């Protein structure tokens, strides 16, 4: 059963070129899907249209039975609470402790007053500690986040998402700022979440090899269009060229984009 369905979705930023051009695909519950493509292809735009950090211009996005493009503010928050998001730059509140950041995942389900005061139930706290333990961060729980390494920060980001009890986790280049070792740890955790908790994962990736290794399905995006959608073993060299541009110049801008 599809948990997510894009139908002819387009996105135009400030009346410039189309960032997404008639994108259609659907994702089944429990899938682990990677989106690959050169810098500026529209990977982040796809993800952000799902939880409406960006509003798509046209088309329809049906997520868990609701057309997200038609949601009112309140309903939108409801949809967001069941959607985790993991960011390239972790997006933690650096001056707060690890455990506080993990508990942030609960805010959407709490009353405003409890959220403002940071009043979490014992149950929630126990759960946060259990999740941290699972991610190998039990010893860091009371540290401030700015004392952590990149890999540890990203694990806190994952813990925060799990704390939401999401149906779907959106990962926008979760390993782009990490070294290969830390990257493997993060990808392994994402895979584990997907297998054990049956949470659907959509992961934007720069690294084709990582996408090949971890995903059940890969979507290749180029210049706002889907140019590949299939199993990893179907992704031939030709298809990779089609995604990244045959002259390779896009691949170079890609590398520069990663550095900056």
């Amino acid at each position, binding site marked *: 059963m599809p948990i997510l369905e894009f139908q002819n979705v387009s996105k135009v930023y400030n009346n410039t070129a189309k960032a997404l051009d008639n994108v259609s695909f659907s994702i089944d519950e429990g899938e682990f899907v990677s989106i690959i493509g050169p810098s500026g292809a529209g990977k982040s735009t796809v993800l952000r249209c799902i939880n409406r950090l960006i509003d798509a211009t046209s088309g329809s996005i049906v997520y868990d039975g609701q057309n997200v493009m038609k949601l009112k503010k309140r309903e939108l928050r409801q*949809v967001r609470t069941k959607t985790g*998001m993991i960011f390239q730059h972790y997006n933690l509140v650096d*001056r707060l402790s690890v455990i506080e950041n993990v508990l*942030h995942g609960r805010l*959407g389900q709490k009353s405003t007053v409890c*959220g403002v005061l940071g009043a979490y139930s014992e149950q929630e706290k126990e759960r946060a500690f259990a999740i941290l333990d699972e991610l190998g961060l039990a010893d860091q729980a009371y540290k401030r986040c700015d004392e952590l390494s990149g890999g540890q920060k990203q694990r806190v980001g994952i813990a925060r998402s799990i704390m939401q009890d999401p149906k779907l986790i959106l990962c926008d280049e979760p390993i782009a700022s990490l070294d290969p070792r830390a990257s493997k740890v993060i990808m392994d955790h994402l895979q584990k979440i997907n297998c054990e908790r049956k949470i659907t994962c959509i992961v934007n990736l720069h690294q084709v090899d990582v996408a090949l290794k971890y995903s059940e399905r890969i979507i290749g995006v180029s210049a706002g269009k889907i140019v590949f959608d299939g199993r990893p073993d179907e992704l031939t060299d030709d298809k990779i060229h089609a995604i990244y541009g045959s002259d390779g110049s896009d691949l170079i801008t890609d590398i520069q984009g990663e550095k900056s």
Partner: protein
Amino acid sequence: MNESVKKVFFRRKITYLVIFAALIAVYIISASATEFHLSEGLASFPKAMAWIGHNLMPDEKAMKRFPKILDKLIETALLSVAVTVIAAIFAFFFSLFGSKATGFNGIVNRIVRIVAAFFRNVPDVVWAMLLMFSFGQNILTGFFALFFTTFGLLTRAFIETIDEVSAAGIEALNASGANFIQTVFQAIIPSAMPGIVTWILYMIETNIRNSTLIGILTATGIGYLFDLYYKRLDFSSASLVVVSIIVLVIAIELVSNLIRRVIL
């Protein structure tokens, strides 16, 4: 490649040369327009210093006035602290609407920035003179004059702080379904706190200095005392006022450095 590198450096040299020449030109034009002569200004400096040394030394008579000066000084300092803190609270909530990171409409952002710029760019002395029409020579005049400029300045400063340090956390909490008020308290305040405190401390220092000047206009606080002694040609008492203001400002600066070190 090498050629273009040379070109870049050559262009930079030219740029510096042009800027330097422009500065000199601006100086010459403005100096001749205002009939200001650097050499004469410098020449009269020692004489001015000698006069200050002779007339502006606190003497025994001035020391007798010290309790009164201290009293007004504390009043002025407390007023400055109160104004700054209250203005900061208003500015913080106002700046939320001016920050791009909080995701309000671009027009709202623009309006907030314009309002802040208006309050900030009217000098506090001018505010004081305008407000004197409605409040008269009253402590409220000084209060609001300082309040307006502080509010304008802090709003702008807080917007920048929030945009810079809170954007990532705001985005994450938004994406997780937290509401705006929760985001303010769980992401913006914790991450922007050091910036906010630094700005508040800086504004307290500034306002203590400025409130003296405004006090002269509104006949309140330490500024009033200074004005009084000065007009009576009681220069030694007036200078004691100045010295005590300087001591206070330095003390405040030391204290705020300490606070900054503790919280950052």
